[in-house]
């Protein structure tokens, strides 16, 4: 595969709130190559959306990037001023935001909004922009009759299609899709995911970061998956490795909590406990209070990242003794 589009090195994004410091993202590093699709999985509050907002440079008020570097095509975007950053947004990075059902201006027709996005980012004439708008709206599967409609006249799935069109229309190098399928029913969800997958095949040099709390939605699209917990990376591997050979106890727990279409599983297992208090994180490994395998060392020292081979990274103390431990259960 081609060159590296996004390179994040030891990113730390904290929210400074009156009660303390929320370490929403605490030392995350990863790379994305051209055309790659990366999934970030985590529970609510694990900092996965914050990663997205950090990359696009639109952290909301108390949030701040305290450490780390973000390179987009060899350009450290944390060193850019706000105007240069705005130039990059839309053209190089774009985002499909979380509450995407409300991401269209209810007072404007959708084709106008998409045309505006083109005109804001590119220096082309209006007639060309209109043509491109029609083109992309057709590509995302909207009927020509609905181009000139207001958002409230469209169904949720159609709105989502329009938003995807808006995010892709300037052919960005990197697309951050922050839970793009929330609030959609299962069938529409599947259609939207399929559409995104097809569109990404069309944009060969573009990469996508897919942020979700639902492992099952992204396994088909993503090449690699990052499992996040408590602001930290727990496991990184290719999708097939995560599914077939999860090494981190948390990943194992996550996988057990999904129904499997072929196995006749009687009941689903959940992970005991609740996500950590982000102001007051556990001293050792963040997952240790909920981990069924945890030993003394887990509560005392933060775990280190281990490469078990083939770029499969796991952050766990017990990675060496995993076979013994996991067999016991």
């Amino acid at each position, binding site marked *: 595969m081609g060159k590296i589009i996004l390179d994040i090195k030891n990113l730390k994004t904290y929210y400074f709130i009156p009660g303390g410091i929320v370490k929403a993202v605490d030392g995350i590093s990863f790379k994305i190559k051209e055309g790659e699709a990366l999934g970030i999985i985590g529970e609510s509050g694990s900092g996965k959306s914050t990663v997205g907002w950090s990359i696009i440079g639109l952290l909301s008020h108390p949030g701040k990037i305290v450490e780390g570097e973000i390179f987009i095509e060899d350009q450290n975007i944390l060193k850019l001023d706000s105007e240069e950053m705005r130039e990059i947004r839309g053209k190089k990075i774009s*985002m499909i935001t979380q509450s995407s059902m409300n991401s269209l201006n209810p*007072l404007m027709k959708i084709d106008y909004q998409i045309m505006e996005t083109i005109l*804001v*980012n590119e220096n082309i004439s209006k007639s060309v922009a209109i043509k491109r708008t029609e083109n992309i709206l057709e590509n995302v599967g909207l009927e020509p009759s609905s181009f000139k409609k207001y958002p409230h006249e469209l169904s949720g799935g159609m709105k989502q299609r329009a938003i995807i069109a808006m995010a892709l229309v*300037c052919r960005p190098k990197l697309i951050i899709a922050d839970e793009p399928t929330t609030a959609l029913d299962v069938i529409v969800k599947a259609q939207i995911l399929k559409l995104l997958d097809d569109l990404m095949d069309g944009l060969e040099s573009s990469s996508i970061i897919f942020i979700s709390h639902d492992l099952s939605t992204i396994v088909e699209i993503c090449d690699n998956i990052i499992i996040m917990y408590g602001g930290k990376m727990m496991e990184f591997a290719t999708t097939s490795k995560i599914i077939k050979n999860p090494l981190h106890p948390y990943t194992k727990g996550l996988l057990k909590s999904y129904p499997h279409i072929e196995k006749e599983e009687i009941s689903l297992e959940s992970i005991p406990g609740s996500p950590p208090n982000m102001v007051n994180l556990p001293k050792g490994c963040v997952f240790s209070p909920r981990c069924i395998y945890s030993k003394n060392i887990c509560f005392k020292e933060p775990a280190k990242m281990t490469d078990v081979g083939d770029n499969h990274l796991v952050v766990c103390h017990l990675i060496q003794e995993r076979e013994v431990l996991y067999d016991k259960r």
Partner: protein
Amino acid sequence: MSEIIKEFLKRFKIAKKSSKSMFITGILLFLFILFLYFFNYLYGYDPLEITNELFSPPDLIHIMGTDQLGRDIFSRMCYGIRSSLTIAFIATFISLIIGSPIGAISGYFSGKIDRVFSIIFDALCAFPGIILAILISVMIGPGLITTSIAISVEYIPQYFRIVRGLTLSLKERPFIEALKALGSRPKNIIFNHILIYAIPSIIALMMLNMGSAILAVSGLGFLGLGLPPPIPEWGTDLGRGRDFITIGVWWTSTFPGLMIVMSIVAFTLIGEGLKEILGNKIIGIKD
């Protein structure tokens, strides 16, 4: 456009009975004023023509009688509509043009800019409007534009506050966040996306302000700070005519006063009705 009108009519039908009748009354009064405006052409008296018939009481020849210089009062009233409406409209328009964008910018960027503008406009609010208008019109002299400017200053904070409040709530909405994420300039977000939200509120407020602006125009005229004579103007005529009430000439001041009251009532009723019909929500949105 047609959808907006359709939605408006729908809301008008739903609007409470009282506000509906208020709105209709306002419209009728306004139409009557407009009718007078054009009726003047049929009536055929020159409002500036000085004749020998001083203080002729209202009769069939001079519907509202004549004033101290023998000028036809009805004709002057009809021409007075022009000055009052024009000045009131220009004044509200100026305050709208200045107040709304500053409100949107201040709300959008918040922080220091917001602090500074808020303090300025709060201070402006603390001043009684008519005193401010007198002060400014004394400073820059009488005339159509200058009077408009003097009056407009009073209304700027109102537009500022309404638009700022709206912007503060709007900028947290996901679609503004999405616009930012797709590289929109703040200029584009403010002028294309936020300000159109404020239009219904601005229209309702504008109608209400038109009424009080007419009062302010007349007030300035009454004090001799409005349009320079002999331009027909309700307030000026009211002020001049007041002197002759004691000698039994009531028509020189009554009719200008009546016209002022009528137009203020018209605009206030329309404004209140619009406020009810447009509500806090914006035409064309089901959110």
